[in-house]
């Protein structure tokens, strides 16, 4: 499949697509003629999608009613893929991953090491931008899942074609390092000049490990020796950073910098413009209606009972029905106004998500030049 590596025009049979139901509900679906995509609003036939351009909105009549339901069929990107993953997994989200890629200048010359693979979400972003990605996962089941997924997504390969550039290896890199040899559990294809061991020569390293300091000493075997190599450790706790700093110094890494990245998303909303004058006029309107009521009651009282007590002491009960209904409702009193209702004036406002991701991990960057000699 080429869904992650080539821009596709039309939705085709066999394509992996992402179906957008809502911002928090994006599902990965492989197109198969005759099948349906089922939602609680009804079934969307794949046949309605196949042959249409990517990005098409698909409408169906909802079950049992004369209404319509909509979805959008999108071509996967690493970012959409990340959004589609179940949130319980530990994922490197776009604010972090995009910063790491930019900060480490991870372009078509980058030979990247990633450990561990985890959900594989960051691997997709690396695969898009880098020349080659060597990713390592120590968890057997997760390794197999990721291997399968990378195959399905068409990003596994030796970089002979754009985007088909991922190698995944089952490995505890802290204990056993990063070298990839024959007989290792790996997707690496040993070719003619790499019969015994893969030539990794990484110049970008990303360590998402609980104890990166145990992996750092093992990097020397696999990093490029003739150019500057960048490293990023991704650690949730500050004590991990401290230990990482210690290891970086010990093993000759320099330009050490640590940052946190904070991503925020804003909702666009509208707030009703309620002016003081309108509020004053509303109160005046109420008052005048109330006075009418008071006057009327006064007349009634005058007619029926004696004048001596209880009237006009200001303690008039508001709950008594007044003569006319209050008519001036500048803010739509009495019914719930829909945000943006054209009957009213609105001010555009932003509102940050109600729960923000206040912390993901600390990012510790460093770099190293192995050979300091001069080339002829």
């Amino acid at each position: 499949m080429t869904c992650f590596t080539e821009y596709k025009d039309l939705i085709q049979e066999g394509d992996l697509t992402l179906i957008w139901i809502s911002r928090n509900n994006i599902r990965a679906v492989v197109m198969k003629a005759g099948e349906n995509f089922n939602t609680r609003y009804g079934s969307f036939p794949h046949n309605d999608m196949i042959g249409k351009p990517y990005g098409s909105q698909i409408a169906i009549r909802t079950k049992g009613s004369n209404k319509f339901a909509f979805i959008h069929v999108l071509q996967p990107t690493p970012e959409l893929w990340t959004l589609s993953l179940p949130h319980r997994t530990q994922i490197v989200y776009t604010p972090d991953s995009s910063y790491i890629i930019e900060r480490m200048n991870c372009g078509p010359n980058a030979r990247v090491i990633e450990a561990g693979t985890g959900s594989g979400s960051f691997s997709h972003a690396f695969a898009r931008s880098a020349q080659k990605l060597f990713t390592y996962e120590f968890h057997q089941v997760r390794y197999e899942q990721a291997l399968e997924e990378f195959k399905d997504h068409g990003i596994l390969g030796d970089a002979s074609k754009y985007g088909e550039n991922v190698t995944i290896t089952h490995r505890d890199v802290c204990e056993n390092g990063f070298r990839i040899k024959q007989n290792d559990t790996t997707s690496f294809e040993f070719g003619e000049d790499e019969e015994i061991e893969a030539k990794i020569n990484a110049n970008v390293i990303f360590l998402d490990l609980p104890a990166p300091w145990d992996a750092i000493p093992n990097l020397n075997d696999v990093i490029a020796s003739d150019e500057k190599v960048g490293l990023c450790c991704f650690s949730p706790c500050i004590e991990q950073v401290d230990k990482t700093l210690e290891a970086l110094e010990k093993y000759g890494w320099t330009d050490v910098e640590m940052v946190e990245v904070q991503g925020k998303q804003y909702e666009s909303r509208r707030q009703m413009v309620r002016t003081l004058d309108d509020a004053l006029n509303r109160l005046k309107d109420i008052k005048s209606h109330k006075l009418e009521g008071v006057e009327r009651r006064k007349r009634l009282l005058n007619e029926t009972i004696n004048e001596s007590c209880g009237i006009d002491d200001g303690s008039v009960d508001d709950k008594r029905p007044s003569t006319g209904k209050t008519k001036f409702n500048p803010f739509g009193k009495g019914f719930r106004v829909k945000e943006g209702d054209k009957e009213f004036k609105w001010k555009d406002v932003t509102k940050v998500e109600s729960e923000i991701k206040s912390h993901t991990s600390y990012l510790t960057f460093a770099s190293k030049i192995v050979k300091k000699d001069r080339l002829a």
Partner: protein
Amino acid sequence: MDPLKHIVAGQHVILKLPSNNSKIVELKPDGSISLGKFGSFNVNDILGYALGTTFEIYYNEENQETNQTNKNKNPVGQVRVIDNSKDTSANEESRATSEENDLNSMDSSLSNKNLINVGNEIQKMTMDEIEQLKKQSVSGNEIIAKMIESHGSFHQKTSHSQEKYLKRKKQKFSKRFTVNYLSSSALLSFLLEKGDIQRVMDMSEESMGMLLNLANIRSNGTYLCMDGTGGLLVYFLLERMFGGDIKTKFTGKIVVIHENEHPNLDLLKFSNYPEEFIRDHVKTISILDYFEPPTVEEIQQGFTPLSKEEVHEMKGNRRNAYFRRLKLYKGQLEMVDYATKVQYDGLVVATTLSLPSLIPRLSEHVHGSRPIVCYSQFKETLLELSHTLYDDLRFLAPSIVETRCRPYQTIRGKLHPLMTMRGGGGYLLSCNRVIPAPEPEPVQAKGSEEPIETLKKQKTE
């Protein structure tokens, strides 16, 4: 030698100076480069080392003589490679800070209890004496050692203040510089450093990184772009697409729409892409030509390509003029294609033009499912845009996002976020271009009250 790995002649590189400032230089072979008070060096002396290497300028007797005779000119020194990782002074510094005991050591006061005014008056060396030292000096470290000796209350400072003092002095007198690859982020930070905040629209590295990822920028895409930063945004795209590789096999293209008569991509002059490479991968069209392109007929009215025979018969001058006009003619036809036929793989915009009128029109030729990412210095302009896009079925889930990077002090035992940092960085609006479904039975579809997705209002919650 690979100019992406090594320092090569003719390259633009960015130098990091002891003051923490940067300087962009072109490495003209056989030339010399002056770093002002930090000294001068010969370009040839640094060629062939890995990009990222740190050098120190030093002067031997011979240099000193030159110095004497040529007072006005910065004398050119020799360079030696510094191994930062084995730099003893740096290690000492961090070792001192990581060992708590040091806090209680005899030489440093636990706090500044007994110290009132730490000012220049306590430094007993005069500026003249320091200048004298600098002229004689072999290295900055020695000057600093001498200054400490003569600093009356140095030992009354806490080890923390001592460090700060040392670091400040070190920066002032060291003659080190690091030669770095001029990445787009390096160019951005250089421009911010020299105060061109407005020119780069207050961008930050993290916002640009996020823009490139959200826009799904790849080596094989064709992107529509408006760049109000004078070429910086385009450089970010080029670096992500080609990584400085001028022999790239990738075919990606950037079509830049400009609001003035002529495009302004001045900042690309700092890049190491040759003009021809840029011509192949970056196409420029004015908004007028893009939105109101001439018809092919109009173009053909002005010029008719001649047959091979006719061209063959032309004389030198006429023939050259003909080829020039042919090239323009072809450029015009290509331009019309970009304005009318190409379906773009993404739209990225950084402009101060009003967005609500601009983005929907620029999005007409963006292919379905492809991202639209718009940078702005101000959230308020994106807010206005987002409401416009919410009401347009061609845009899926516009989101305003902000990303901020917060750097830390990484001295072990004294970890904390930096006390101050730059405030800006801008905002992004991102969404996907989509293709609305034809409404099956218009009246009823409009009446739909419970779509899975409320089309008019796609909030983040």
